[in-house]
């Protein structure tokens, strides 16, 4: 069965390219353009991995990660933080995300990080 990845980003361009890269690797990609009621959405979609943009509308990637990591039902889903902030690593660690990806990224790095956390 294909692994399901949930991508939360409000930028159409980024969404398009990440979808293409991950689909070519054989993953099923679901997209959310805002992260209001993220916990409910995640429970409904049941993804194997989540890629969250830090600047996603509604509650933002930081808060969304905190919510998901606090809920026993979603705690074990790996979260990759996606951001253009130069301190992405520090921010990702602070909120309890599993990995980070700094914009602009290499598609190989994206594939490697996703692959590593879906093993």
């Amino acid at each position, binding site marked *: 069965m294909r692994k399901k990845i949930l991508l939360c980003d409000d930028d159409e*361009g980024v969404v398009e390219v990440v979808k293409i*890269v991950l689909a070519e690797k054989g993953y099923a990609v679901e997209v959310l353009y805002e992260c209001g009621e993220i916990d409910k959405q995640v429970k409904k979609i049941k993804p194997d991995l989540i890629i969250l943009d830090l*600047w996603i509308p509604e509650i933002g990637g930081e808060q969304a990660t905190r919510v998901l990591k606090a809920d026993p039902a979603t705690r074990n889903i790996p979260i990759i933080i996606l951001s*253009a902030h130069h301190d992405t690593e520090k921010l990702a660690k602070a909120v309890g995300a599993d990995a980070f990806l700094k914009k*602009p990224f290499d598609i190989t790095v994206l594939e490697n990080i996703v692959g590593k956390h879906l093993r």
Partner: protein
Amino acid sequence: MIKTFKQKTRLEWRILWPIIILVLISFLTLVWSMGYLLANEEFIKNDIKSHTLEKAIDLYSNIINQIFIVDIFITVCAILLLIVLFNYLKRTITEPIVSLSKATTAIADGNFKIDIPTPGNDELGRLATNLREMKDKLYSYYQDLQKEVKSKERELDKSKEIERRKDEFIHLTSHELKTPVTTIKAFNQLLERYFTEIKDKKAMDYLVRMDKQIERLTRLINELLDTSRIQSGKLQLNEERFPLDEMVNETVEDMRSIVSHHKIILKGGTKASVKGDRYRLSQVLINLLNNAVKYSPGTDRVVVKLDKQDHQATISVQDFGIGIPKSEQKKIFERFYRIQNEKNPSFPGLGLGLYIAAEIIKRHGGEIGAESSGRGSTFIFTLPVA
């Protein structure tokens, strides 16, 4: 003496004249008593001579009684006068002094609304008038100062607002500029894969060139953002203790994979650890290496040297390129400064890299400088060993 007498102030006169009156009363009483006694001396003597001693004693007692009664009367009057004078002095001297003292205390406490009464046109009156004028001036200065403080507070609020907007701008620029670059870069890499698969060398060559331009654009965006951060004092360092040689090795290794026409030679070592922001210090070295490559076209090597002396680590980057004229060696660390060279008029860049590098080294307690003597230049920076 006369002069001193005339020079007495009104206030001194006010204290002096009751004393003079009292002295005069005492003196007049004494004179009158003596005079009265002397005036009756003849009668007493005659009575003693005519052996009417009893009569003389009577007369003498009578005179003494009269003097005593008059003296008592004068004393009572003097006491009454003293009470009146005491009240007069209290009202004209003590009370105004107390009220002035209260007024100064109130002014010292910042109460400028207090009323200062004028007790008369003597020295105390003038003191009160001067104090009132002083208070009014002080109040006016105080009000001016308050206005100034309020206006400065407003300015401060305004500059805080500008700072906030600048921060917002930094975040927005970071997001809005980097996001499309992310997409372009990713699609470019997807295309690279595709053309590699179908073995289209020409397309591959174009895409590699495009990739370099995307990297350049990313670097420029980052330089602008870092400069904004430095300018607004928001450049944060994530400090950690790490082995310096390891960081330099990794950075040089990364650069070797990017640089194609130059060989990066690494010499020496420090075996030291430094406390600082690994990412930022690596950024400094990348910048110096990029410059070394950029400003040494036609040459084939760049030398990185690591050294340690006492508690200081030194990292130098040497190239054999166009060099830096002596007059410009200090200016190159200024913001937006770019070397003007007639032989090589166009080197791309914003002139921000060295400015950012210098700021990062300064924040780490180190120093940065450049040496150039004709052929090539050497950039050296120091870091305190942790």
